[in-house]
């Protein structure tokens, strides 16, 4: 009996492993490698000596993961600590402001009834088609008139709202049944209380997604800081990295170390937030 079962299990496995599946997985594996390889190469090179980097055949694994000379050079040659601090300040401020305005706007566009609501919303959506490079010109004038160029505030102010995230969150808010709203109103809650006590907690998964995407965009922002920032002490990381590469020597090790500093916080953030995005999806409490 036992052998019979084993045999049947084996044949079943054989039957399930078709050529199509093998090809699918091979293809996926290649795709994954293509995606991950540059990151691996960047991080590993950050720990290699100059000799290892230029050696042939290339060294796939650094001699010692404790070789931190490249990071030291990067930090000495350019104020990466300051860049890092600037990036953190700008990202946190932008994300906090954008999230707040996005929540309010989404509530207005999904729940409040006012004249021209849908018209205004579709107008806003059409503004999404305008490329940022175009807006950047007028924004530069505005920011200069405010006297905010070459300041962190100048990096923050233009990015305190987002049509795209408002669009995402509004669509989620629309999917929350009306009965929850009316129920809360009858329970005595005001619009404001309903928004913060019911809607926002329910929308947590969407909010985390928005915050994550937004943080990523702010962190990686390069074009705008290049226009606005003129002095080294106000640079953010991506701009700082760019400046470092054009001002620094030809040693790849410190570049890779600097690039790692830019990238690692976002990877860490994603790994932490991913859990919330998945966990937050559980819903319930509504029937019918």
């Amino acid at each position: 009996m036992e052998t019979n079962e084993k045999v049947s299990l084996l044949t079943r496995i054989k039957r399930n492993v078709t050529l199509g599946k093998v090809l699918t997985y091979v293809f996926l594996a290649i795709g994954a490698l293509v995606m991950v390889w540059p990151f691996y190469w960047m991080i590993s090179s950050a720990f290699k000596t100059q000799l290892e980097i230029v050696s042939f055949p290339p060294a796939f694994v650094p001699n010692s993961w404790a070789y931190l000379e490249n990071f030291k050079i990067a930090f000495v040659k350019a104020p990466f600590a300051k860049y890092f601090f600037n990036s953190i300040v700008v990202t946190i401020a932008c994300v906090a402001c954008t999230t707040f305005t996005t929540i309010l706007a989404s509530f207005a566009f999904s729940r409040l009834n006012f004249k021209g609501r849908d018209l205004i919303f579709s107008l806003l959506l059409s503004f999404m088609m305008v490329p940022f490079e175009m807006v950047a010109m007028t924004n530069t004038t505005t920011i200069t008139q405010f006297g905010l160029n070459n300041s962190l505030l100048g990096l923050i102010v233009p990015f305190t709202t987002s049509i795209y995230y408002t669009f995402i969150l509004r669509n989620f808010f629309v999917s929350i049944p009306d009965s929850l709203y009316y129920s809360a109103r009858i329970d005595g809650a005001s619009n404001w209380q309903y928004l913060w006590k019911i809607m926002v907690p329910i929308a947590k998964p969407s909010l985390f997604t928005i915050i994550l995407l937004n943080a990523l965009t702010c962190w990686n922002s390069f074009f705008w800081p290049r226009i606005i920032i003129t002095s080294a002490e106000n640079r953010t990381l991506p701009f700082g990295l760019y400046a470092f590469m054009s001002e620094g020597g030809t040693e790849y090790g410190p570049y890779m170390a600097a690039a790692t500093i830019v990238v690692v916080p976002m990877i860490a953030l994603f790994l932490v937030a991913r859990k919330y995005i998945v966990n937050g999806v559980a819903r319930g409490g509504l029937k019918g």
Partner: protein
Amino acid sequence: MKIKIEHLTKRFGNFTAVDDFSTTFEDGELIALLGPSGCGKSTMLNMLSGILPVTEGKIYFDDDDVTDVSPDKRGVGLVFQNYALYPHMTVLQNICFPLEIQKMPKEERIAKAKEMAKLVHVDEFLDRKPGQLSGGQQQRVAIARALVKKPRLLLLDEPLSNLDARLRLEMREEIRRIQQETGITTVFVTHDQEEAMSISDHIVLMKLGVKQQYAEPQELYNDPANNFVADFLGNPPINKIFGVAKGGNFELEDGSASFPFELCSKVAEGTKVTLGIRAESAYPVATAEEAAFVGEVSSTYAMGKEELGYIKIGNQEFRAYIASELGYKKGDAINVGFKDRGVFLFVTETGERVR
């Protein structure tokens, strides 16, 4: 709390959902808003709760005009058809929510919520999320949340429609029990006549936004105001025979039969009338003298001590209960007598009852 509704009207564009509705609900009663779907009963409920603004008319809670008062200030509790529990909160947090909004101190509101959970028998599930509860439990939580702030009026929108048949019976009794224990004026919406008949003190029967009758359940059955009411209540449905009033006689439409019927003399000669007969109100009598008319048995179905028979008069048929020991068979002539109760005459065109 007494609720007075005066000439209440709700229009959505050209469509009139509730039309000139006036009535008074007495304090402490359980009232059913009954009617087929689309009759405006939920619209009525939403206007009572304040969710929907009224087009015309007034609503009074006791002597206060609440017509333009917003839902959060009306002091009503509402249980939605889908219960509308807050999915991210536990049962306890859900029940506490109205008190939290009132800024009641934490210990006090938890104590009150627990008390309310006990009343509706969900005190074992306080730490669960709504998603982990069955339909019946969710509904109890929704009722507890509606009751915890001691509303003056409790409103239930199709409270039993999402439950399976057995649970529905159980929750029906529960709603009655909770209502009687709290003594709170309660209005619930249903399309199920049996549900309305079994637990309510009074029923409002509605059709196309118009109030048809407001009466006690038994009265609604025994003394319907019109054809629609008689038709809507009762199982098996009331028998209807269509005819014309002719010289105090009820004559079938095609003239195939005719018999004296007193009420027929109260309408104009030749008026089209409908005779409504409840199945239990027509019965076999011994002689043709006692009978209202003589018919013919067209089929019988055994139902234990009685048989449900189809009796033919002229070319129309109706149902009646016949004692099985009488042994009527298909094709037998049968003398049919009417009881005093459960036989009504309506004007066919208007549905109006002839008394």
